[in-house]
């Protein structure tokens, strides 16, 4: 499905601020894999998502999505088969445009845009159908500007937008971290439900250890641009957060806990 082979990414090469964000990293995802990515700040989690999405080019290695090498494709080309939800709810939607207009653009992800209005009865029905299960009443507010919605509503809308055309790969970048716990939980449940229904292959970065063990079928832990732990199957089932922390210390020789993790677990 997704094969990231021996990928290296260095920022500010040759500069005093040189930073090896990914160090010969390899990762293979089977179809339907839902992988939680954890690690301390600066471990390379977000960089991993960004090189998968094509936000910046890689220095070495290859990225293969369903047999196709994509490492040379620009972000907007890869977007045809990759759905993304960002940490900041403001990043996933256009504030000055209506819910319907945002959804139209999401529905056309990776397709040629027409010089004709994107509205229509059929599409409106589809949008209502997709928004209704959220229980937020957004299905009756299609003409409302997204800027008037709350952060949680916007993030829920972003999840719908990222999956309204089922992507081959879904990237979730700490997408509940900026929300209050209750809203975050609701958005996470919504994401899990859609992932299960559409059997989406997913990479989810999180700072929440509970989440990392409970969501999906596999947990990987990153440290200094490498994957130091890859846990799945039986081993993962009975694992506790404390076990995970111990494993990290053994594998990296450092303590994983930082303020955000203490607060979020």
């Amino acid at each position: 499905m997704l094969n990231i082979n021996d990928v290296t990414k260095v920022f500010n090469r040759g500069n005093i601020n040189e930073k090896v964000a990914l160090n010969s990293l390899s990762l293979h995802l089977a179809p339907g894999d839902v992988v939680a990515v954890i690690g301390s700040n600066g471990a390379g989690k977000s960089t991993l998502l960004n090189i998968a999405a094509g936000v910046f080019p890689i220095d070495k290695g290859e990225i293969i999505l369903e047999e196709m090498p994509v490492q040379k494709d620009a972000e907007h080309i890869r977007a045809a088969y990759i759905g993304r939800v960002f940490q900041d709810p403001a990043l996933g939607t256009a504030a000055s445009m209506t819910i319907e207009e945002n959804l139209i653009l999401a529905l056309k992800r990776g397709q040629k845009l027409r010089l004709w209005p994107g509205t229509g009865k059929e599409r409106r029905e589809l949008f209502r159908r997709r928004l209704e299960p959220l229980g937020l009443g957004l299905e009756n507010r299609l003409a409302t500007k997204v800027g008037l919605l709350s952060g949680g509503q916007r993030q829920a809308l972003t999840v719908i937008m990222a999956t309204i055309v089922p992507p081959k790969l879904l990237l979730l970048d700490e997408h509940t971290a900026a929300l209050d716990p209750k809203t975050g939980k609701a958005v996470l449940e919504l994401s899990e439900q859609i992932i299960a229904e559409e059997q989406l292959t997913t990479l989810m970065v999180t700072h929440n250890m509970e989440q990392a063990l409970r969501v999906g079928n596999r947990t990987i832990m990153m440290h200094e641009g490498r994957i130091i732990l890859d846990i799945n199957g039986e081993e993962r089932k009975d694992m506790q957060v404390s076990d995970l922390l111990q494993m990290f210390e053994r594998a990296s020789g450092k303590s994983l806990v930082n303020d955000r993790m203490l607060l979020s677990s």
Partner: protein
Amino acid sequence: MSLAFLPGALEQGLLWGPMVLGVYLTFRVLDFPDLTVDSCFTLGAATTARLILLDYNPLVATLIALVIGALAGLITGLLHTKLKIAPLLAGILTMIGLYSINLRVMGAANLSLLRIDTLITWIEDTGIGDELATVALGLVICLFILAFVYFFLQTELGLAVRATGDNEQMIRSLGINTNTTKVIGLALGNALCALSGALVAQYQSYADIGMGIGMIIVGLASVIIGETLIGSRGLLQALIAATVGSVIYRVIIAAVLQMGLPSTDLKILTALIVTLALAFPIMRGRFTGISSFTKRGEGRAEHQ
């Protein structure tokens, strides 16, 4: 004070209307401070005047000016997207370059169209009266352009252009090449600007190398005046506001001129109007005691 200036201000406001809609497109919709506008306005005037003097049909000359204007926007767009030159600088580069081009097109610093057939004289010849002729022409063109822009911004492509100005990262993650949408927006905005130049040259019966100086500020002043007085809740309202703002701006200028200010002081007057209009939300907050910060934030969310 005599109100004799009102018909003239209405004429001018309508003829400059497409330019204001163009500035609205680049500045507000695309969020791209495009200074090409200044020279592009002159380019439209120069192209039309020269072509009419070469015996081209005035309508054809006007349409060619529109296409040439789009090319000017295209150049700014390519400078920015392909060569990664900052928006302001990309616009200035095209603007400076066009100054020489405009002189070449005209072959002189100004061209006179006196006693030559233009779009304006055509309509005057139908016998509806000189003043009504210009107002009718301006109104028809403004309404047509307004309807076209309103339609375009709601097409799928238009939505992508709007989203590019709103949230570039989001629209790229949805598979849109923002380089393309930026170039389209700039080409369209500058085409409208050149159209205004073409109309104004025929209205004044001359084209002059300096006629576009400060046009970006005139456009901005009109957009802001319209937004402040009429509002910009919906897309249609914002577009109408920009067009009406263009007329109101001309009324203000004409009124002040009539009070005895020399026309050489127009530029500082325009600068003051824009400053006042830009500062209006903050000053209103000061006076009413409401935090100007939230006011402006709401304005941003409301706009378009």
